[in-house]
């Protein structure tokens, strides 16, 4: 196992990050409970981890690309609900193209979530634009066969001097942990054995 991969429960004085970036799947698992599995550990593990970070003064960052993916998922959820309630057999994207107004309920949900995120995240803005971030993302994309969003999240972290990421994506975590000095925090169950 890479020495730069840690479970949420392994957060300690020796590996405590002064700054951390939250990956999209972390934010989604924090915000989404599973109605058919009320005791699912995903939410509680994420809450405990974020609380520990806050108590000890870690600066938490959520890049714009994560917000973009988060909004996208909320809209997909809204479309999914509509399909389920109306017992339709249609692809979500096809439904959106036919009736784009259906995603409207998602806006309020997103605004409410962002209002809470704003209270948690650092007040300093991340530098997320420019050729340096773009070119670093391209290098990372090629090096690890990452999709663009994962590459940009990594590039934003590295260009902003942030060397810790919370993620629940095994492939992303084990590869980005190979970058010099990068630490990844993830659920214990997902740590490579």
């Amino acid at each position: 196992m890479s020495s730069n991969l840690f479970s949420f429960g392994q957060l300690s004085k020796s590996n405590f990050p002064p700054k951390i970036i939250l990956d999209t799947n972390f934010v989604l698992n924090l915000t989404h409970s599973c109605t058919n599995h009320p005791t699912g550990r995903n939410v509680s593990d994420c809450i405990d981890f974020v609380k520990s970070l806050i108590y000890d003064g870690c600066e938490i960052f959520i890049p714009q690309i994560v917000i973009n993916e988060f909004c996208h998922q909320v809209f997909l959820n809204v479309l999914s609900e509509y399909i389920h309630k109306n017992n339709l057999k249609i692809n979500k994207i096809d439904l959106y193209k036919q009736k784009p107004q259906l995603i409207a309920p998602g806006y309020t949900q997103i605004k409410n979530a962002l209002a809470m995120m704003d209270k948690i995240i650092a007040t300093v803005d991340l530098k997320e634009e420019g050729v340096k971030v773009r070119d670093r993302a391209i290098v990372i994309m090629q090096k690890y066969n990452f999709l663009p969003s994962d590459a940009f999240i990594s590039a934003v972290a590295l260009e902003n001097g942030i060397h810790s990421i919370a993620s629940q994506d095994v492939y992303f975590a084990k590869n980005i942990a190979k970058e010099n000095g990068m630490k990844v925090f993830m659920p214990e169950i997902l740590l490579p054995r």
Partner: protein
Amino acid sequence: MTKKEKEINKKIKAVERLAGMFKANGANRIKTVKGYRFVLKSF
């Protein structure tokens, strides 16, 4: 309570309000790994 403690409490309350704010009720959006349930696998 110090200003710093108040600030922390405000953040903790925000985390608690944010947590589980959305419901994922589609089985296709839940990935299970030995009892650990994830909302989705596409990101």
